[in-house]
């Protein structure tokens, strides 16, 4: 099942609608890494609210996705991990280390906007 990727100003938003196969996941990763450059996006949000299972492949792919996006010069936030999923992941040692997470899409956007502002402030400072 293909995951739709929406461009929303400087952000790309991918909302997972149903359980994904490994192939779907790698496809999603590749598509996002490619588009983040094409659209000159500042950040990527992956919404996994619909997932009630997250296996090791899925969390590794999401982590790799975040690292790859970072190398392409943008941010990644994973949003909407369910409480049960979160605890199951941690018990399996799948911590998504170094990847930003947020409660839901709204929180993810707030986090990115906050970061964006401080980045702008930083660039203003250097210009002055």
């Amino acid at each position, binding site marked *: 099942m293909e995951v739709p990727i929406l461009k929303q100003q400087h952000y790309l938003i991918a909302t997972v609608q149903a359980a994904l196969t490994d192939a779907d996941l790698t496809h999603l990763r590749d598509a996002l890494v490619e588009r983040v450059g094409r659209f000159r996006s500042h950040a990527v949000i992956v919404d996994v609210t619909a997932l009630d299972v997250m296996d090791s492949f899925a969390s590794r792919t999401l982590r790799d996705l975040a690292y790859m996006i970072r190398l392409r010069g943008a941010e990644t936030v994973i949003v909407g991990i369910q409480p049960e999923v979160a605890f199951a992941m941690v018990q399996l040692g799948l911590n998504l280390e170094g990847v930003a*997470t947020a409660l839901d899409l709204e929180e993810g956007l707030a986090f990115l906007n906050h970061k964006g502002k401080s980045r702008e402030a930083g660039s203003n400072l250097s210009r002055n």
Partner: protein
Amino acid sequence: MVVVVKTKVSPRFKSQQATEFTAALLRELVAHLRQNRTQLRQEWARRIQEAQLLTAMSEDEIFAEATSVYDNYVEALETGTFEALQAYARNLSERVIPRGVETDEVIGIVLLLRDVLARSLFAKYQDDFDKLNSILDAYEPAANRIANTVAVGFVQERERIIREQQEAIRELSTPVLQVRERLLILPIIGAIDPQRARQLTEQLLRAIRTNRAKVVVIDITGVAALNSVVASHLVQTVEASRLLGAMVIVTGLSPEIAQTLVTIGVDLGKMHTVGDLQGGIEEAERLLGYKVISIVEEAPQA
């Protein structure tokens, strides 16, 4: 010369015959119990009072209860099925346990009924010893099973109530409280076993989602000791909270706990710890961008 001819009877036929025989005896028994219902029931109720059982109930209540127990008892004897009796026993237990009726009382009254009925059988068949013997053969196993069923029903009901209460205590013991918008505190008091730890995590994660919390302060001032299992569970809780977008601050680690954690080598690198609950809340407020200002000190300046 005498020829002895043995007639062969198959064992299967024999046992079938025996079952039919027992069934016939049970029918006779049930008829007897039905006939003498009023008298036996009164006798039973009298014996219950004599033995000072069910003192929590009034005389009328005992008699009413005795009537339905008696009828259920006879029915179980007649049909040989115990489901109805089981259901009745559970229902009875549900009613009498809150009134302080003890296990030995319930078992006592059932054994009394067994005794009363056996005595009436002795009286009826006293002239025919063989008949009495076979009637008792049919009666005893059934009566034992009934006593067993009622006792087990009562104990199960008790256990169910205890389980419910344990559950209630456990839920009460881990409150997740909101102190500010998006700031939760979770004060933990008392010993943490793995089961409580699991429940605590579940409640916390659910509360993070429903309250849309950003920061959680877990205060373990009231925890005397932590073992390695619970400690690593705590670390996992912190990690899982992060996946939900909330940051966890742990406060109130006692010197003993701190020492234990370091000795057993739990990786606390990912845990944000602050000395006491006050410090934890202040830190959380700072993270959320709150600033607490004393209006008393501000007033003279304005």
